């Protein structure tokens, strides 16, 4: 292993790490919001909302993330909508991951006993209030493991930013391998991804255990 490239590229790797981390965080929050809304569309009594939800999931889940990001970056640029790489990266990841999250969240909502909604609604809560205060908190506890998988995939998928020169971790590596040992560079990049994903795994496991106890 030869980490001498750090003498020249240390700043690139720090920047790359911070970009990957912040894009992931923004995308994570956005994808949770998108996933929740689409999940509720998918089980809505209104056929039109169900159709929108299904179309969303089937389209974004079944097309490659790279193509979606290309579309948001180059496609929109061709009609003079120029978005920042950071914005395109976060939004693209959120929209893509949101389709997977929607399915996990929908499964969670449907796993909450029907009587919970009836009890909440019969006390006078509106549908939205019942969802927010009664159903979703229980649904999210049930789906922590699959949601955790999606979080981790999201962090790794953020490497798609490199292909539009998004100065993320992988892009820092692409720059460094021009003049230095390829293996060492990628080992470092892999380690830096682990610095984000391992604590994420531990956090998810912790939440799963803590919530399992409280019932």
């Amino acid at each position, binding site marked *: 292993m030869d980490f001498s490239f750090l003498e020249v590229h240390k700043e690139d790797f720090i920047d790359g790490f911070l970009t990957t981390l912040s894009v992931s965080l923004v995308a994570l929050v956005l994808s949770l919001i998108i996933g929740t809304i689409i999940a509720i569309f998918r089980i809505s009594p209104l056929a039109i909302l169900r159709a929108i939800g299904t179309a969303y999931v089937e389209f974004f889940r079944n097309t490659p993330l790279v193509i979606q990001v290309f579309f948001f970056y180059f496609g929109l640029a061709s009609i003079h909508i120029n978005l920042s790489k950071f914005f395109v990266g976060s939004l693209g990841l959120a929209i893509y991951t949101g389709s997977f999250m929607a399915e996990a969240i929908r499964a969670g909502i449907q796993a909450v006993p029907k009587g919970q909604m009836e009890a909440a609604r019969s006390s*006078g809560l509106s549908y939205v209030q019942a969802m927010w*205060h009664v159903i979703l908190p229980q649904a999210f*506890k049930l789906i922590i493991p699959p949601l955790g998988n999606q979080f981790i995939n999201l962090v790794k998928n953020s490497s798609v930013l490199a292909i539009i020169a998004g100065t993320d971790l992988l892009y820092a590596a692409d720059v460094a391998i021009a003049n230095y040992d390829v293996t060492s560079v990628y080992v470092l990049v892999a380690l830096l991804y682990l610095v984000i994903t391992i604590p994420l795994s531990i956090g998810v496991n912790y939440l799963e255990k803590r919530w399992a106890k409280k*019932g």
Partner: protein
Amino acid sequence: MTIIQFTNVNKYYGDFHVLKDINLTIQSGEVVVILGPSGSGKSTLLRCINRLEDISSGELIVDGFKVHDKNTNINLLRQEIGMVFQHFYLYPHKTVLENITLAPIKVRKMNPEEARKGAMELLTKVGIPEKANAYPSQLSGGQQQRVAIARGLAMKPKIMLFDEPTSALDPEMIGEVLDVMRTLAKEGMTMVCVTHEMGFAREVADRIIFMDEGRILEVGTPEEFFNNPKEERTKLFLSRILHH
């Protein structure tokens, strides 16, 4: 004063005719117990009152609200009706106190401190103030059902609906739940109860309604119903449940 009025109510699940031509008037302060074999439509009838089930035809007026009218704001009516379910359906992620205060705080916009005070009074009334900060999973079935009753009462409802409130309980715990219901009845609460507790029906009900195959077959005081049933089907039902 009439508080619940069914007029020619019918309900279908697809082709299945669940409620057949229901005509029923319930007065404010009345305790009505609905009896009948399983599948007779008792629970469905009860669940129509707060529109957990939609009726297919006829008119249903509850506390002045037209329940059959799609334009009626059902959330407003539901604030006036507490409901207790067979399987309690307490919110497992919330403490006992939070279960009781959720609707008063979110729906009635009650000040949280005030809501908690009211909840503690209700918990005292149902006999388990010491469980205020416990989670439902830490309670026995009987305790959970008493919390559910307190939750139903927290909105200060005009009507309480009970859907087989003791059917999921260990025999030892049925008494404590019935005691709470008895107290409520004495205080003048309007109650509609679907139950299999014949002792409770006989002692507490003002009127008994007997249903079979989606129809109301017989209506009467407990005295008339148990001692002098008119319909053959009622006699058969009573002979089966009272002498097993």
